[in-house]
């Protein structure tokens, strides 16, 4: 259960930097290994940029979660953007609508332990990721 949480706005490129810093400091606090820190921070960076570029901005909630003895960090990215019509397609490697590499969403799924995406066309998108220690 979440012991504490914070919400950060994602409204500009500078906020993506901020999101990375927040993710890194929470990962450090939980004493994740350097590799796990880097994975979480990179996934946060990808998803924050998606929230900004595709969702026209939104928020990131960061919280520490517990499951029995295991502890982890959960990041939830939420936007009120156009939504994703075909999630399966969006999760495919190399699929892009913005001229990028098309690996942001699919890649960040591989960087974390739990990945949950909900999207409704015209309503917005919520992506939640968790990295366990």
């Amino acid at each position, binding site marked *: 259960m979440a012991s504490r949480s914070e919400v950060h706005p994602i409204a500009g490129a500078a906020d993506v930097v901020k999101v990375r810093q927040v993710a890194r400091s929470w990962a450090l606090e939980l004493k994740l290994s*350097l*590799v796990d820190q*880097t994975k979480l*921070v*990179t996934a946060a960076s990808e998803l924050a940029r998606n929230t900004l570029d595709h969702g026209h901005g939104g928020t990131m909630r960061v919280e520490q979660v517990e499951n029995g003895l295991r502890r982890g960090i959960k990041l939830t990215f939420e936007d009120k953007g156009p939504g994703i019509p075909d999630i399966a397609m969006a999760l495919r490697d190399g699929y892009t609508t913005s001229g*990028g590499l098309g*690996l*942001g969403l699919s*890649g960040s799924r*591989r960087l974390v332990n739990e990945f949950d995406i909900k999207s409704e066309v015209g309503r917005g998108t919520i992506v939640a990721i968790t990295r366990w220690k």
Partner: protein
Amino acid sequence: MISFHEVVKKNEGAILSAWIEEMVKGVRRADLMTDTELKQQARELLGLFAKAAESSSEAESEAFLQTREFLREIAKSRMDQGFTPTETARFVLSLKQPIFHALRDALKGNPSDLVNEVWASGNLLDRLALFTVDSAVEFRDQVIGRQQEEMLELSTPVVKLWDGVLALPLIGTLDSARTQVVMESLLSAIVETNSQIAIIDITGVPTVDTLVAQHLIKTITAARLMGADCFLSGIRPAIAQTIVHLGIDLVDVQTKAKLSDAFAMALSRMGKVVVARKPAAGMALGSKAKDN
């Protein structure tokens, strides 16, 4: 009816000393500025304030132009000295109490006038304090803007390691504005120095996500189009694992863990070999003599 500016004018000396006393008690930072400096600033500000208040009670009016200019100067010097904006504003706000006390004494028999004048003078001082804070924040913004520009320039030096070998040590976040600068400076340096090999070192880049990777791949492809080989170095273990999980394809890019490895590869690519020099008898003696 007595107006607050008359009261201030009449009691200027008393207000000044009460104000300074007030500041010495609470607001002043003895570590940051001297008593004499503070007294001088207080005297000058009160003089300007009293004079301007004679003709207007609007902080934005022409009459207060000099006062505003002076507050701007103060805000700037306070920021340079290391005061916070709050401390800077309190310099102005702490003038309220002595003025209110003087008003109380002067308008003892007339509570309704007293309230009016307290309100008018308080309002005026509030606005002047806000103006001071605005100026202070403006100066800080200027400093931040300047630093951002400096960082943009500083963070992308292209260095020549050898004839025909360039290195680009990247540091910090690669957002799109900076990547553009990086790309341009590397490509123009390749032309200027007629280099065949460029090494991009990402030891100082904390996060390599798909956007950063894409920028790097584009830069490397552009360099290759210009006839230069591009090596990527400084890939830390954590970054390497992340790149693999993200699925970024760097197979076409020559990569090395360390800048020194990439440099060694560049030298061997150019047919150069680094050999340890055999110490000649004479030289060894010579250096020994120098040590003594």
